């Protein structure tokens, strides 16, 4: 397989984890190095970053105690 294609595949595999910040330092550095000279790869990371922003913004507005009273009622009722 051609090296450019192999690197492209590796980049696409790592991109989501680069954006969510869970890559190892080695992989993180590899992605940053790969992206440096490839505008289309940078655009790919930007796309993932925007998607992450949308998904986080889409978080449901629910109070953390929702359902808690029901749970407490259930455990008090059960033997």
């Amino acid at each position, binding site marked *: 397989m051609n090296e450019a294609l192999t690197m492209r595949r590796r980049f696409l595999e790592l991109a989501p984890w680069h954006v969510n910040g869970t890559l190892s330092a080695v992989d993180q550095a590899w992605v940053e190095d790969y992206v440096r000279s490839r505008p289309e790869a940078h655009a790919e990371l*930007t796309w993932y970053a925007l998607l992450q922003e949308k998904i986080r913004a889409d978080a449901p507005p629910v109070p953390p105690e929702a359902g808690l009273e029901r749970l407490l009622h259930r455990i008090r009722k059960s033997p």
Partner: protein
Amino acid sequence: MGTLLDLVQAPDTPFGPENIEPVGSGERLKERTGQEPGNERVFALLQRMSQGDEAALRELYLAYSRSIYAFALRRLRDAAEAEEIVVDTMHEVWRHPQRFRGESKFSTWLLGIARFKLLTLIRSREPQHEELGELEEVLESGEQGSFEVLAQKQRREAVRQCMDKLPPEQRECLHLVFYEGYALAEVAAVLGCPENTVKTRLFHARRKLKNALRLMLQRENVNE
């Protein structure tokens, strides 16, 4: 940054090298919000729960209920059912606190239970999830009224609409990666599948989302 147009067009946007800066938050949701207690604290709470301490349950509930709720809602799309999954999941923890052995993060373990609960719920009812292909077919068909129906919905809702049309396995993958900020191994642990399966699901989700968003935008532009 942050419009639908940005999301659709980002991959094709020409960037000069001088404009290239690192992308990625590099921060994880729980680290950012400081919501998740460490395993040591969790073990202490679980120990108290095993002795019937409701205050410990309350603390654990407040720390994790949003996370379970968001995960369940992404899959079920029903607020009442999602809340029921939270209650069922935490009830399971209350009944068997000793089952958490600290082999993973507590939240990973917890979402694994929540996933089991919601799959049980889904299996108990009629299949009703549409696949993304159906949305694409509607858009492609050009049926009278098909665009109007979609165009009536607000643009800012488009990403959620397209995500909702993804197969559930791909949708929960995206949620765990970008909402929870989980690492690959953690996503695989919650979903109970190999890491390569997670990678494949993400790859297909990315392609389908891009296609659907592009189609939606093209339709809007044609009809404007």
